[in-house]
């Protein structure tokens, strides 16, 4: 009985460990990153969702997206700690930042 309990506890903790990391969404809308600034924990995921009519990019430090077409998304795992400023290389003055703690 005790053994069975211990086993199921072990199984549960395995499930908890392999759970999906938290996902944060940055919407690209109205030629802006919303939210412009975001703080996440190391290992979490940031998804940029392009809700604009035109293509964008997300580039800065360790974040290097391909061209994200209208309606498409870009997923990045925050694996490097620090403050990462990024920009859209296609549109000047379109900036954002992700801080990874």
């Amino acid at each position: 009985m005790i053994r069975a309990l211990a086993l199921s506890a072990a199984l549960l903790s395995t499930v908890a460990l392999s759970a999906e990391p938290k996902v944060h969404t940055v919407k690209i809308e109205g030629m802006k990153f919303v939210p412009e600034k975001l703080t996440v924990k190391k290992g979490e995921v940031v998804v940029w969702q392009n809700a604009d009519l035109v293509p964008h990019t997300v580039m800065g430090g360790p974040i290097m997206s391909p061209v994200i077409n209208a309606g498409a998304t870009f997923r990045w795992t925050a694996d490097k700690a620090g403050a990462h400023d990024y920009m859209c290389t296609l549109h000047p003055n379109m900036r954002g930042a992700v801080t990874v703690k």
Partner: protein
Amino acid sequence: LLKKLLVAAVLSSVTAFAADTKAAKATGPTDPQIAHIAVTANQIDVDAAKQALEKSKNEKVRQLAQSMVDDHTSVIQQATELVTKLKVTPEDNDTSKQLKAGGDKAKAEIGAKSGEEFDRAYVANEVAYHEAVIDAVHKVLIPNAKNKELKALLQKVEPVLHKHLEHAKMLQKELAAK
């Protein structure tokens, strides 16, 4: 003198456009006409940008032109998808015709120049053209659009045009300082 002629040509096409948009507002363009005007206005800027990509050697001018091709092509694609879904057939009209004629004229005049003179003329036209189009989208196309989805699409175009204007103005300043 050439510069003055160009400015006059740009101004006259913009004025014609503005005058025409006033006329359109009085009668009110229909949704099929609005769809046609939107696609035409985007296409004119794509054509102007393609010419700039052929002629300009300035990296920043080429970057602006490439953004214009990519962005306006993307807008046309989504506008086309929407009108297809809505079963709206874009209808040619006087505003579209005047826009097209103005675009062709500006393209020919700018295309006759070369080097830095071409770069400055292209960028100056981008500034004037986007200002005129923003005005038309804001004051004529959006208020007259009946279909909610068409109106929403035009509202999404506005910030794109503002960003393009900002980009072109920034570059215009840089080229003037050279």
